[in-house]
Structure formats: structure tokens, C-alpha cells
């Protein structure tokens, strides 16, 4: 087994065997899934309680009958009451609120909803739309138009975007594409920052506790650096794969833990029509994406981006001394292009073919993040190829020069190296 391999496996196993690794790897998706489950549970079950509303319809808008689509609202018409007389009574009679419609057409406040505390916005919106519908029907009738005929004439249009590729046409789901792009870019951003800084910390630890000199008397500094970078990268990939597996497993396990959930969704078709269409849209939307292309690009840009930055982080870690503040000062210039990439990515998901997005997805220091932001959209082949080539090239270039900085840096004790010195280490022979 060659020496990089020995170093890699030590770096990998000491990290993977740690309790904290287990905790974040298993714990994080568990917490996410629990939240997810709670939110679903609340959305489905929260609205089941019926609201009883008393209606005093002095203007006779409803003609004593409400065409109610909203299941959770139950209306009861009052007779022989006035607004003033009923205000004190509606709570005792078991109503949550009391809707008063004045017959005075000149009054500025013609419609009033009394309730003991402020009513939720969706309920108010529901009641408003019920009143509006009723008034419209009344007006249409008054003008001699059949309301049903009118319904047939007006159409609520929903635009379907179809993407035409050589393999045929398919439906586009802009929202899903947006979310997937953003999610992938964000993940790469997180992985680069988290694991990159881990490389840096680990290198500067080795330097300060002086193990580096022992190791480099057995292996080349470059082998130590590469072994470390690859080992920590493998930890990142492992964590990532475990997350995906856990998410898939738990997603399919939800019906087992919440058997009523699906049942409820199926049994309240009217109320949850929107939710269901969202669900099917998500499934269809994800299926409509070029999944293989996304997965392969994600892996490539994750690995390429990580390797490029990890070598820079390793060099940064090798030049700092014991002083942790120096490390902070050095982290910032390294993080800057990553953050810049993230900012460009947030623009690129909205406008994937803008000049900025194209530049960002080709420039190798930002391309891993920005390209993922454009990944669900059609990317011209030349841009993709150029971006990939530049990333590979920059990885080789940065590993080469950072390797030289690293080699000198880990054996320098005492003072921090200046930028000028680092530059000289990187570009002189030896």
C-alpha cells in the first residue's frame, strides 16, 4: 500500500470513528425528518376543527344560504337579532365569531366580523371571498346574466411550460428546477467551507504539535498533504452518501410511522387539493429533471471544487503559527471567492444565462458553486467543457504551488510567513 493510502486511511478512520461524526451524520437528517414530519402533521391535522360563525345578513346578500366550499367554516343564520344584541351572546351560544352585514348601503363599514380575539388571515380571506362570490352572483342576476353561464365564460388560465429537447417534449417545473439548482449549489458551498476549514485546522495542528517533522522524515510533504486532503474529502463524501441513504429510507418510512397521514390526505380531497397537486408536481418535477446529469455534475464539481480549495486551505494552515488569530486572518481571503461564488449562484438560479452567471460558472474558483446553480437549465456544451477543463487545470495548478508552500511552511516555526515569502516559496525552484 503506498504512503498516500496509509495517510488517507488514518485521516479517514480517525474522523469516521469519532462520536461527533456519528452524531452529525445520523443526527442531522433525523432532526430534519422529525421537523418535516411535525410540519406535515400540523398542516394536515391543524385545520380540522370547525369554526362556527354566526351570520346576521341584514342586506340579504346570501338569501339565507351560503354555498360553502370551505369545510372548516360552518355558517348559521340568525333571525330576530340585531348586531348590538348578539355581540354579547355569540360566545355563549358556541360561535367562534359573528359576521354582521349591514343593510345600510351608504355605511362605510358595511361588513363586520366580531370575534373574541383576532381571526386568522386565511379565515378572513375565506369569508371575504364567500361574500364577494355572493355579491357577484347577486349582481349578475340583477343584470340578467346567468351566473353559471358567466362561470363558463371566464377562465382561470394556468400556463404550462414545455421544454423541447431532441428526445421529445416534457413539462417544465420552474419551481422544482430552481429549488434543485439552489440546493445543489448550497450543498457544494457548505461542503467546501466545512471540509476545507477542517483541512486547514488539521494541517496547522500537525504543525504546532510538531508531528509534521516526524512524518516528513518518512514521506514526502506532498504525500502527507494529499493523503490528508483525500482522507478528509472521503469523510465528506461518506457523510453525504449516508445522508442521502438516510433521507430515502426515512422518506419511505414516513407512512409506517404516520399511517393516518396518507389516509387523511386522500380523505380530504377538497381541502387539500392544492397540497396534493403540490406533491404530484414535486414528484413529476423531479422526474422531469436531467437527474443523471445533475448527479454526475454534482460529484465532479464537489470533488473538483473541494480538491482545489482544500489544497489552498492546506497551504494556509501550513504557514500559520500557534496563534489562532493568524489563522482567522488567512481564512478570510480564501473564503472570499467561495462566498463570491455563492452570491453569483443566487443570481444564476434566477437568470442562468446572464453574463455574470456564465462567467461565474467558468471561472474555476467559483464554478463549482455557480455551475450547480445553472445545472437544471440547458447549458451550452462549450461552456460546460471549458468549465470542467479549467477546474481540472486549476486543481493541478493550485496543488502544485500550494504543495511547495506547504512543504516549506510546515517546518517553519516561530514567525508567520509574509505574502511575499509565500509567493517566493511557491514560485522558486527546489
Amino acid at each position, binding site marked *: 500500500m503506498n504512503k498516500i493510502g496509509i495517510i488517507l486511511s488514518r485521516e479517514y478512520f480517525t474522523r469516521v470513528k469519532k462520536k461527533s461524526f456519528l452524531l452529525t451524520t445520523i443526527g442531522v437528517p433525523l432532526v430534519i425528518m422529525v421537523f418535516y414530519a411535525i410540519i406535515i402533521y400540523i398542516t394536515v391535522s391543524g385545520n380540522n376543527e370547525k369554526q362556527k360563525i354566526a351570520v346576521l345578513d341584514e342586506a340579504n346578500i346570501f338569501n339565507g344560504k351560503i354555498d360553502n366550499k370551505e369545510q372548516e367554516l360552518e355558517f348559521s343564520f340568525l333571525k330576530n337579532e340585531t348586531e348590538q344584541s348578539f355581540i354579547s351572546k355569540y360566545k355563549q351560544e358556541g360561535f367562534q365569531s359573528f359576521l354582521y352585514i349591514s343593510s345600510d348601503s351608504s355605511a362605510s363599514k358595511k361588513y363586520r366580523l366580531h370575534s373574541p380575539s383576532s381571526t386568522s388571515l386565511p379565515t378572513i380571506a375565506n369569508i371575504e371571498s364567500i361574500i364577494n362570490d355572493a355579491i357577484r352572483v347577486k349582481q349578475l342576476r340583477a343584470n340578467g346574466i346567468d351566473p353559471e353561464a358567466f362561470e363558463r365564460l371566464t377562465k382561470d388560465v394556468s400556463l404550462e411550460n414545455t421544454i423541447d429537447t431532441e428526445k421529445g417534449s416534457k413539462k417544465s417545473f420552474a419551481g422544482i428546477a430552481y429549488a434543485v439548482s439552489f440546493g445543489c449549489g448550497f450543498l457544494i458551498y457548505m461542503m467546501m467551507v466545512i471540509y476545507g476549514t477542517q483541512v486547514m485546522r488539521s494541517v496547522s495542528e500537525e504543525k504546532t504539535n510538531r508531528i509534521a517533522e516526524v512524518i516528513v*522524515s518518512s514521506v514526502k510533504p506532498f504525500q502527507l498533504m494529499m493523503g490528508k486532503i483525500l482522507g478528509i474529502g472521503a469523510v465528506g463524501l461518506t457523510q453525504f452518501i449516508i445522508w442521502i441513504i438516510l433521507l430515502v429510507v426515512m422518506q419511505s418510512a414516513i407512512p409506517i410511522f404516520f399511517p393516518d397521514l396518507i389516509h387523511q390526505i386522500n380523505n380530504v380531497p377538497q381541502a387539500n387539493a392544492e397540497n396534493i397537486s403540490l406533491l404530484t408536481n414535486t414528484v413529476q418535477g423531479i422526474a422531469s429533471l436531467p437527474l443523471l446529469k445533475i448527479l454526475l455534475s454534482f460529484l465532479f464539481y464537489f470533488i473538483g471544487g473541494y480538491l482545489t480549495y482544500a489544497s489552498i486551505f492546506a497551504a494556509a494552515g501550513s504557514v500559520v503559527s500557534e496563534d489562532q488569530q493568524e489563522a482567522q486572518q488567512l481564512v478570510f481571503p480564501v473564503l472570499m471567492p467561495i462566498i463570491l461564488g455563492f452570491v453569483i449562484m443566487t443570481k444564476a438560479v434566477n437568470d442562468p444565462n446572464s453574463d455574470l452567471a456564465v462567467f461565474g460558472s467558468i471561472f474555476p474558483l467559483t464554478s463549482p458553486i455557480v455551475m450547480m446553480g445553472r445545472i437544471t437549465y440547458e447549458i451550452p456544451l462549450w461552456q460546460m467543457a471549458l468549465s470542467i477543463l479549467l477546474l481540472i487545470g486549476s486543481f493541478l495548478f493550485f496543488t502544485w504551488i500550494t504543495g511547495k508552500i506547504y512543504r516549506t511552511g510546515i517546518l517553519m516555526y516561530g514567525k508567520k510567513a509574509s505574502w511575499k515569502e509565500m509567493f517566493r516559496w511557491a514560485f522558486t525552484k527546489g
Partner: protein
Amino acid sequence: MNILELHSLKKYFSDQKAVEDISFNIEKGSIFGLLGPNGAGKTTLIRMITGIFYPDSGEILFNGKKFHPMNDIINIGYMPEERGLYKKMKIGEHAIYLARLKGMSRTDAMTSIKKWFIKLEMESWWNKKVEDLSKGMSQKLQFVTTVLHNPQLIILDEPFSGLDPVNANLIKEEIYTLAKNGATIIFSTHRMEQVEEICDQIVLINQGQKILDGTVREIKQNFKENIFSIEGNIIPENLMTHIFEVVSFDKGKLLVKLSKDTNNNELLNFFINQNVSIQSFNEVLPSLNEIFIRLVGETTPTRKFEMIN
């Protein structure tokens, strides 16, 4: 046969001539002392011998052939002065890891480590973590990891610092045994009494240059100042002579510096003629410490930085 030959090694850093034109040979199986004040260039020299640095110019021969770090490194064991270990690792695993980096297989490493742990009474440590060890204990572990791959050349930089006398002795005995079994040991230190005791040959470097090279005996002979010590019933009033100068006289022990063109027999005769009964008579050779201070003290104690271009 020389295990190591250095020919005009040079290594300049941007602001310092760390090693300037140093040459010497080390005989196989010897214990060699590399001495010098702080910042003399010892560490840089050692780093070139261990393949960590490449010399700017000059040549290193290992076993008579040009030194090739990639291949020869497995025959070298190096214990740096600034030593460290991975704190969170278990001791057994740590030793195996370092052995494997030297090219040993896991099973070979295991056998060798077990042997050494028994020898140095460390068997019970196997599953302890490095961070649980005291300074002296981790020193012992470090020594074991340096020698467990049976290197031909062992370089120890201040190996006894932090060790109590019992453990220092234990390690010292192991160093002798290793040398007896054919290993060559380079011993870098500025503790002169240890060097006098252990080393066959020494080289003293200062400010990047070699200023002394030879066996301990030779060097002491070269630096002797014809000082003799005489003990007996000496009467101080009778010491006026051209044969010697009195250096000191304390509790019946007289130190004298012999004048030029005289020899010790004349000195002895002088006292015999005075009917002094002599209890002891011997030549006082300078200690390495005195030689060291004399040679190094003449130069500026710390190195100056200079621009090299």
C-alpha cells in the same frame, strides 16, 4: 567504511546562510556527536541528511552511493528535537502507523513494536491514548518509533531532554546496544557531558560552518594547555620557579601551567627535590564544554540575519 559522507553541503535560505560548505564522514557503527550552539545550522543539516531538504549544492553519499531520499529514507530513523505525536491516537496504533509510513507491513510492525515495548517496559500502554502519557513517557514512545524499523542510521536530536535519570539510562543503554549491533547513531545535542560519555567522534559547527572534527580524545589533546594537577604536602612559599605558573592552590591541590620548553619530568623533579610526598599527579585536559565555549564564545552568540542574493 563510511555510512555517510557529506561533501561541501550548502543550504541558503532567503535571509540566512544556514549551512555553508560543510563536509565530514561518519563511520559505520559509530556514535557520532553533532554539536553546535542554537541556530548553528544543525537542524538544517539533519534535515538534508533525512531528505526533508535538498542541499543547494554539495553531495551526500549514503553507504557509498549518492543519497536518494525516496529509497534510503527507510534506512534512517529520525527523532527531531521538536517532537510531537497525534494526541488522540492510541499508542499501539500510533506506533504501527509510523512504522507503516517507513514501509513496514502491519504484521512486521506489530512484532517489532511488541519486542521494543517489552524491552522498555511499555507493554501496558498499548491501548492508552497519547494524551494520557507524561512527557517522559511520550519521549520513550518517540524513541521506539524512531528505531523500530531497524534503521542503519539513527538520528537523535536531544534524545534525553525531559527524561528522568533512570529512563535516560535505559535509553542510553539501548543506544549502545544499537551501535554494537551495527547501527550508526548521530547524536545532536549541546549537553557536552553526554557527548564526552557517549560519542566516538564529534563535529562542532557554528554559524553554518564546521569548526571542529575528530574523536573526543584527539580534540582534547589538541586543546590541552599543559595544565597539571598535583596533590601532596606542598608548601606554598616554595613555589617560585620558571618551570611553571601557578593557576590555583586550594586545599593541598595545586594546579599549574607548564612553561614552554619544559616537560612533566622537570615538574615532578622540582617537587621531588623539595621532598614533597606526591599523592597524585595528572594532566588536566580541557572538558568539551570548555572547548565549546572557547570556540563558540569568540563569535557572536546569536546569528545575524543578512540578505543573500
